[in-house]
């Protein structure tokens, strides 16, 4: 086992006495970002000490075992499913060559633009007893088919979430395989190993941090999901949180349940990081696009069939159904306001992507340059926002924001004697801050994996040449992190456009987006009318996905 690699960084010239004695600027930056995320988490966690009531007792007596078991099976199923789909597809498109590979390469990212609860509804709409498939079967058979898979079931939820979330793993693993996979296989082959053994024993272990990063996002998203599980009426930890809040009128009990969730995620992330910190992952050298493994004849078509069926089930069929619905309501529902919904969505997605990428870059660089326990912990904390159910996090963000506003209002009133309204609340700044807190984990996962790829000898060389600190970041890291940053930006962009609870709670008056539109239509079960904004979301996600695949295929 290799020893953990720790960079010993001499203090830079020009560092003030203050910084030297206490914290340097990297640590200050990391702690500030962690503080931003910790504040809403703290607000939620603090409720652990507030009133205790009988809500807990009720859950323990009636449904806790089911909730935990359901949550466990969901995590296990979605985890295994997305890893399998994501890794296998990434390997095929990044390291192999087969018919259709060029466009499948980017097309396989498209399911990312579909909100999971929309796919859930389409899936149930198509495959449930009353759906067209079973109805058609009944009319052919003259009776009920002897057996048909039950869509509203544990398997059904797992399938829908796997199909909508696998792109997280796919994108990150693809990034890893693109740069090091084939080279590693070649090395293995030159040592007399077969391709499969090379993949299993060399390429796969080398891509582990990327896969783990994608998987962590998938699992956090699964834990925080409310929309999909409620359409399936599948009770999880999250539905219990919402039930405590909306059904039993106890936000404190809801927050207590949520705190438990955050605690579990934190422990899991720490374990994952510990296991990873003992290994080193770095670039295995340049490889060119030409040396993909050619899959000829039947094997090539098999690969094509596999990729196209995943794309078909996860994207083409749902979007087809949505388009049919959207077409039906287009005349009734479409108006010029859609342009502003679209504009708002794209603007918010873009601005949030920039902001979170900047945040992630700071975290990742600090972690590299100051690899101490405090920084590592702060980075972990800073990525916890993603694990909380959206509405709970929204409240956690809203309460401290309002508190600050109130302080400022009173302060200005005593100083100047004028009354003003909210300064932060209801502004885009507050909204973007909330997105930063929620989606930092998404950007961090992608950028962190990319940083892992940069070999430590590069830092040493740079330092020998007198380049360190911010110039090191700008001149060495940044160009090499480009692929990771683009992945991060795209993931956040698409995620923000789909996001609902925070958008609903923090948007300024009149700042409705496509996802707000989807909310309006779905909250009363008008799914067909939600199809129009959903299709618009897919279209808005299309261009960045295309751009990303263009850029990330150009090797660094």
């Amino acid at each position, binding site marked *: 086992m290799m020893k953990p690699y720790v960079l010993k960084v001499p203090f830079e010239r020009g560092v003030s006495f203050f910084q030297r004695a206490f914290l340097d600027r990297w640590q200050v930056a990391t702690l500030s970002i962690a503080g931003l995320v910790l504040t809403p988490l703290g607000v939620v966690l603090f409720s652990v000490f507030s009133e205790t009531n009988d809500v807990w007792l009720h859950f323990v007596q009636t449904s806790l075992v089911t909730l935990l078991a359901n949550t466990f099976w969901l995590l296990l199923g979605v985890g295994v499913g997305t890893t399998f789909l994501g890794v296998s597809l990434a390997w095929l498109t990044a390291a192999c060559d087969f018919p259709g590979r060029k466009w499948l390469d980017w097309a396989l990212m498209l399911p990312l633009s579909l909100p999971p609860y929309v796919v859930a509804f389409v899936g*149930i709409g198509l495959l449930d007893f009353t759906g067209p498939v079973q109805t058609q079967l009944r009319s052919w058979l003259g009776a009920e088919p002897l057996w048909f898979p039950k869509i509203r079931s544990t398997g059904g939820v797992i399938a829908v979430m796997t199909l909508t979330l696998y792109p997280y793993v796919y994108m990150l693993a693809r990034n890893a395989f693109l740069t090091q996979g084939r080279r590693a296989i070649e090395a293995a082959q030159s040592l007399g190993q077969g391709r499969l053994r090379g993949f299993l024993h060399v390429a796969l272990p080398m891509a582990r941090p990327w896969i783990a990063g994608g998987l962590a996002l998938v699992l956090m998203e699964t834990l925080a999901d409310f929309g999909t599980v409620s359409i399936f*009426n599948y009770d999880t930890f999250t539905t219990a949180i919402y039930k405590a809040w909306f059904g*039993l009128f106890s936000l404190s009990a809801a927050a207590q349940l949520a705190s438990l969730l955050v605690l579990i995620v934190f422990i899991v992330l720490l374990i994952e990081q510990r296991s990873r910190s003992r290994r080193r992952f770095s670039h295995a050298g340049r490889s060119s696009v030409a040396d993909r493994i050619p899959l000829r004849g039947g094997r090539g078509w098999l690969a094509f069939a596999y990729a196209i069926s995943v794309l078909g089930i996860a994207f083409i069929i749902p979007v087809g159904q949505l388009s049919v619905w959207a077409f039906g309501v287009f005349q009734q529902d479409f108006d010029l306001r859609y342009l502003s919904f679209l504009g708002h969505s794209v603007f918010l997605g873009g601005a949030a992507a920039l902001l979170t990428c900047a945040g992630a870059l700071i975290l990742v660089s600090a972690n590299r340059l100051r690899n101490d326990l405090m920084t590592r912990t702060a980075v972990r904390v800073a990525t916890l926002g993603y694990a909380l159910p959206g*509405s709970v996090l929204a409240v956690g963000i809203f309460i401290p924001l309002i508190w600050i506003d109130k302080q400022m209002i009173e302060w200005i009133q005593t100083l100047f004697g004028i009354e003003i*309204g909210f300064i932060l609340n209801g502004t885009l700044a507050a909204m973007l801050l909330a997105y930063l807190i929620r989606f930092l984990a998404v950007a961090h996962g992608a950028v962190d994996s990319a940083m892992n790829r940069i070999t430590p000898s590069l830092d040493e060389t740079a330092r020998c040449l007198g380049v360190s600190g911010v110039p090191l970041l700008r001149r060495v890291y940044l160009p090499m992190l480009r692929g990771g940053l683009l992945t991060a930006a795209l993931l956040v962009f698409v995620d923000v456009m789909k996001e609902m609870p925070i958008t*609903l709670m923090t948007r300024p*008056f009149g700042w*409705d987006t496509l996802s707000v539109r989807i909310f309006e239509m779905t909250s009363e079960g*008008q799914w067909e009318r939600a199809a129009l904004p959903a299709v618009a979301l897919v279209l808005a996600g299309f261009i960045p996905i295309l751009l990303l695949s263009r850029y990330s295929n150009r090797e660094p």
Partner: protein
Amino acid sequence: MTSPLRAAEEVIVYSARNEQLIKPLFDAYTKETGTRIKFITDKEGPLLERLKAEGEHTPADLLITVDAGNLWRAAEEGLLKPIHSKVLQENIPAHLRDPENRWFGLSVRARTIVYNTQKVKPSDLSTYEDLADSKWKGRLCLRTSKKVYNQSLVAMMISEHGEPKTEQIIKSWVGNLATDVFSDDTQVMKAIAAGQCDVGIVNTYYYGRLLVKEPTLPLALFWPNQNGSGVHVNISGAGITKHAKHEQAALKLLEWLSSQKAQNLFSDTDMEYPANPKIAPDKWVASWGSFKQNLINVSKAGELQDEAVKLMDRAGYK
């Protein structure tokens, strides 16, 4: 500083009623009176937390929600203020408003029985409670207990029958289910129409929306408990926030919402029933027949909601 001679009035609304259902009303009001209306929509839970957190600085003047339980809760938490308005008292019947006048119902949502006309005769049906009878074994479809409409229905049953009897009824409902509970009313009706089950409980406007699109579905509504306490109704309604900055303007808007013109718009846009009994419902809605409403004050639904939720959990109603 300069100020316009006559500043246009403004009302700021937080609404849990969907945008597509309230915007037409607001547009009509602005056209009629010149008052500008700014609004934001969200789910009830986050809206109430938002109001609570904003406290005396809240920009909101009016809170509009669906379900009496949410209005009751907003009032309980001190977010609404009592309204003294003769117009509202006259327009809105006593069982559809807060006994302390902190909120008023504006439209009525009836939750009733729907059945497959090819498989069930109306004479087979009588009450919600009767759906617990073993003759409905394997023939009943229900929506999830997580939806507030079912929580309110069960809360009203608790207030009439007490907990033990209600729990028995709910357990038998669950025993009669033909398939897992659905996540919305439309799915319940489609399942009944497709023959997966024969009978279920839905809000009438879902029935209206579905039948407009697919008029040939073999579905009909039945008004239960007509010899007893009446059909369970819920409301969507509104109250003025405790720290409203434009209280008078908000009151005028609220009064207007209870008036004839607005009542028609308010209920017709979603095929609900007007809360003001002097106003006739939309023609299509009226064609479903008239019925006796349960006159227990709808605020009971709020008071007993958490008992109802726990009871349904115990009864295994997911």
